[in-house]
């Protein structure tokens, strides 16, 4: 039995996985907040446009890592493959997100002339299906986020990846980075509503981080149980200072502490709006941590070969 580090997927794919989770989750959270809470259209439109940009950039990284990116359309051939479903989810997501965001862009006076160029009946249709696009896009965003984990769990000889915990971890971490990104955005908004939403997002992010910690506990407990490639991977991570200090401490524990403090001790004051600095720090740390998680999970992937 030998354990060999996988040398196939590197930081480019980690970037794709990170941006996929971030983009999918950013859309899902902002569309749902918009639907059920209502919040200012400017912030939602920026959030949705950024989420589209994340997925476009992520896809570029995936394509750049391929040997023959120009033939990528062939990826729609085998429905047994997760990449097939990734392409389906991402494209469905793009259609829904663009349908959803165009009417929202009317909130920006500078963009008005461009939107006016769209024929009235089409604009009417987009308006009419706005809620549907929000829901459809959120579902697709969720699927994109979970797909990033499913993709790499389809590796029978990489025990550390080949577990149901990984897609769960990636989807929760993806939503946590999505909430963190929206929190970041909210600090730039001077709208009163945005600050109410910021408090909700903070709570959401804290709950997601706690969930992530629970999944991580279960995941490592499983990995350490038998002397397999999964244990070798877990040990590799335990001995990686950047993973422990960068992801675990700075990317989870510190932001959780900041958010908890903010929720319980600063939430009831009369100051109206919270100071932006802790939010900025906590959400940036969550984002960096999310990226490090993907990079290190990929680095830690070890084949267990029978020779």
């Amino acid at each position, binding site marked *: 039995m030998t354990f060999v580090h996988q040398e196939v997927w590197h930081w480019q794919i980690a970037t794709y996985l990170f941006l996929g989770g971030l983009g999918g989750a950013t859309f899902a959270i902002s569309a749902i907040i918009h639907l059920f809470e209502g919040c200012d259209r400017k912030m939602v439109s920026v959030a949705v446009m950024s989420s589209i940009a994340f997925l476009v950039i992520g896809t570029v990284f995936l394509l750049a890592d*391929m040997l*023959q990116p120009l*033939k990528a359309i062939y990826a729609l051939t085998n429905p047994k*493959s997760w990449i097939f479903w990734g392409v389906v989810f991402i494209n469905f997501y793009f259609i829904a997100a663009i349908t959803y965001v165009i009417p929202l862009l009317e909130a920006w006076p500078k963009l008005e002339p461009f939107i006016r160029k769209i024929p009235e009946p089409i604009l009417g249709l987009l308006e009419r299906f706005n809620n549907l696009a929000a829901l459809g896009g959120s579902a697709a965003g969720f699927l994109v986020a979970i797909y990033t984990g499913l993709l790499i769990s*389809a590796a029978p000889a*990489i025990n550390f990846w080949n577990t149901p915990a990984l897609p769960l971890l990636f989807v929760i971490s993806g939503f946590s980075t999505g909430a963190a990104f929206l929190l970041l955005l909210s600090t730039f908004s001077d709208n009163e509503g945005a600050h109410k939403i910021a408090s909700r997002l903070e709570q959401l992010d804290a709950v997601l981080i706690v969930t992530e910690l629970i999944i991580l506990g279960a995941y490592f407990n499983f990995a350490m149980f038998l002397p397999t490639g999964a244990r070798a991977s877990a040990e590799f991570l335990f001995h990686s200072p950047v993973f422990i200090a960068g992801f675990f401490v700075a990317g989870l524990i510190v932001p959780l502490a900041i958010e908890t403090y903010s929720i319980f001790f600063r939430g009831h004051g009369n100051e109206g709006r919270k100071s932006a600095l802790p939010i900025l720090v906590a959400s940036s740390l969550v984002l960096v941590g999310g990226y490090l998680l993907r990079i290190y999970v990929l680095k830690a992937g070890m084949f267990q070969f*029978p020779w």
Partner: protein
Amino acid sequence: MARYGMVMDMRTCVGCQACMAACSTENQTPFWSEKFRTHVEDKEQGVFPDVRRVQLPRLCMHCENTPCLSACPTGATHMDKNGIVLVNYDRCIGCYACCIACPYDARYAYDGEDVDKERELYGKNVSHEMPHVDKCTFCVQRLAEKLEPACVATCPTHTRIFGDLDDSKSEVHKLARSGKAQPLNQGLGTSPKVFYIPS
């Protein structure tokens, strides 16, 4: 229609690596980048003073339940009517999903640099015209001419035994059927068509 398979007799392998050389020349694989379709693993077994060296030749196992094929989004990876797992170079986008899915390290990237080097070495007569993910084909081109795979034909110690697993008269059928030869990592459920007689 056949169900081709191979048996490796680990009792006789001396680790001469003639199979790797034969495969490289037959299939124009990038030995210059140290990428091979077949490898010979040199293993130490036991604890001092009871130690010995064992050679384990390996290649694509042409799994019956084929994780690389399931992972391949483009259908480039497919199984032909004789149970041989092949890559259609034209369709392969080089996404490496198959390399991640393969539990036997049987695949590698025949990348752009390798294609250039191949052209330099073999001129117009190249078998790999574009970058793709590459793997053992049981030398389909030789089978079509009723020849054995290059590694089998070359092996001086009869370590590699090739044949139709469905043909009850074949040596591979008998060895696999009797349980004398066993596949690697059976627990994964991939049902490999390459079997090993332990040393």
